[in-house]
């Protein structure tokens, strides 16, 4: 690929990133009523969030432009919105969201401790994000009622919503939302770290930046957050400013890390849904039969799509002068067998050559004299 071809996806991704980040900035201005409800103490978080949005969109757009990803992206939407299937697909979408995303059932099957760790961390992070980002963006704020200082009212996008007594169970639960999130995350991180420290297999393939750092970051955010609560609840604000800065550093670092590391899977993973619909359609449609053994082995649609993707990637699995046309039309089982056949053919040729040489020697020296 030449330099100009390389730069096209980069430019396109940069533009998408700028547009989405700009859109978020506009929403922040609108939602916070011209920045009136922005919390000055959270400005660092705000800029880190904007940076993370830019980075995430850029990487997502780059990712979507890879030939196989682009193919599945198009196919996924296409099969989902097929006429006559939309209602069934929508119901199926909710079922898959519940089982796969809310309950993480596929991770349950991979391992109980893996599931527990992921489920706790995931819901902890969802809860924390649902509280933090609207607060940082100024989309939610709380005010005391003018006629009763013992009551708070929540404002969403500047619009008044429900009110509740400060000293109530609802108030306690609401104002300690990040504490509950921290408990969930810490529990999950502990299970995950235990597995990573004890499992020989995990230790062999894990990388610090990809597997350990995210856990350390989540742990640091949660613990420093809890220390803030402990400081103002039981220690009369002891070291609160220092802890606030420490907590901000951990959060901002994590936001900046979002587009680059393991957390990017949060944004990639929904592709699983599109693939599931694609596989449903493939299973119900025409099947590809192996052009060596004749057995069906995959959906014809997927095999044809793969041939397209491989060509886009520069692979040349075409078989010239063969009725098979492309190696993709051979089933995986036949491919495995053919490796042995190919080796056997080489040995048969070698032995035939040896026999010929031996026969020639005997013909030239029939009496066996030297």
């Amino acid at each position: 690929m030449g330099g100009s071809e390389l730069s096209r996806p980069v430019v396109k991704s940069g533009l998408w990133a700028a547009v989405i980040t700009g859109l978020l900035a506009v929403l922040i201005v609108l939602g916070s009523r011209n920045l009136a409800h922005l919390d000055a103490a959270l400005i660092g978080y705000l800029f880190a969030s904007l940076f993370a949005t830019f980075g995430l969109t850029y990487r997502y757009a780059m990712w979507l432009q890879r030939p196989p990803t682009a193919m599945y992206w198009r196919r996924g939407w296409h099969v989902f919105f097929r006429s006559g299937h939309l209602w069934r697909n929508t119901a199926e979408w909710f079922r898959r969201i519940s089982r796969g995303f809310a309950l993480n059932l596929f991770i349950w099957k991979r391992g109980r401790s893996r599931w527990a760790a992921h489920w706790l961390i995931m819901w902890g992070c969802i809860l924390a994000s649902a509280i933090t980002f609207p607060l940082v963006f100024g989309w939610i704020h709380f005010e005391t009622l003018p006629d009763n200082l013992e009551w708070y009212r929540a404002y969403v996008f500047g619009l008044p919503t429900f009110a509740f007594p400060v000293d109530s169970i609802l108030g306690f639960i609401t104002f300690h939302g990040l504490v509950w999130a921290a408990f969930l995350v810490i529990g999950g991180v502990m299970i995950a770290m235990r597995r990573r420290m004890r499992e020989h297999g995990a230790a062999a393939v894990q990388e610090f930046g990809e597997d350990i750092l995210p856990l350390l970051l989540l742990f640091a955010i949660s613990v420093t957050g809890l220390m803030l609560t402990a400081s103002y609840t039981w220690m009369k604000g002891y070291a609160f400013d220092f802890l606030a800065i420490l907590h901000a550093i951990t959060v901002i670092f994590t936001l900046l890390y979002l587009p680059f590391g393991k957390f990017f899977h949060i944004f990639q993973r929904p592709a699983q849904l599109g693939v599931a619909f694609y596989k449903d359609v493939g299973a119900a449609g025409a099947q590809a039969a192996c052009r060596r053994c004749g057995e069906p082995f995959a959906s014809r649609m997927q095999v044809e799509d793969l041939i397209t993707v491989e060509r886009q990637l520069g692979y040349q699995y075409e078989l010239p002068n063969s009725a098979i046309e492309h190696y993709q039309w051979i089933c995986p089982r036949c491919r495995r067998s053919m490796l042995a056949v190919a080796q056997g053919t080489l040995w048969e040729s070698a032995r035939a050559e040896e026999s010929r040489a031996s026969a020639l020697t005997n013909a030239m020296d029939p009496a066996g004299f030297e």
Partner: protein
Amino acid sequence: MPVPEHLEFFIDPSRCIGCESCVQACSECDTHRGHSMIHLEYVERSRTTQTTPVICMHCDSPTCAEVCPADAIKRTEDGVVQSARKPRCIACSNCVLACPFGVPKMKSDLELMMKCDMCYDRSSVGKKPMCASVCPSQALFFGTREEIEQLRKRSAAVNRFRFGNQTVTTKVNMMVPRDTRPEYVDVAAAMEEDSLGGDIMLNVLST
């Protein structure tokens, strides 16, 4: 830790006796515990007793990784193509269908592709992968080039394979006749050949 450079994998399907030791041992590996990643295939059961163990060949430019829409398959610097990263794999089966050697396995219930990673927990510290440590006929051999040359006087190692117009270079080597050593093993051309007869197993004695 990377797999030491002086240690290489050499496969010799003609020596396979179909004992399935590799299949059993494979599932003992800690990186894919309980799941055997080896394929043990009967080449053409109606015509020959020939079997072949198939492990990942660890391609230099792995087609499985390139066609992965989720970017889940990574090749480490030592040339080992790792199993799909669990957080990323979306179980589309592209890798399973695209691998020219037919190696990756789709675990549909786990929504995860798994494949031979050369027993990375072992090979990365200089130990033999499980399959090579138990193979009684050394159809699967892990060691130095000097060792294999000493053991197989009539064989030479080749790590290039041809599939139509595509040449694939791999980390894993296949043993071929030394005298007529080809530049590459033409796998697709083998489709035109008759299936193997029983004489191939004699290579256990002669190579």
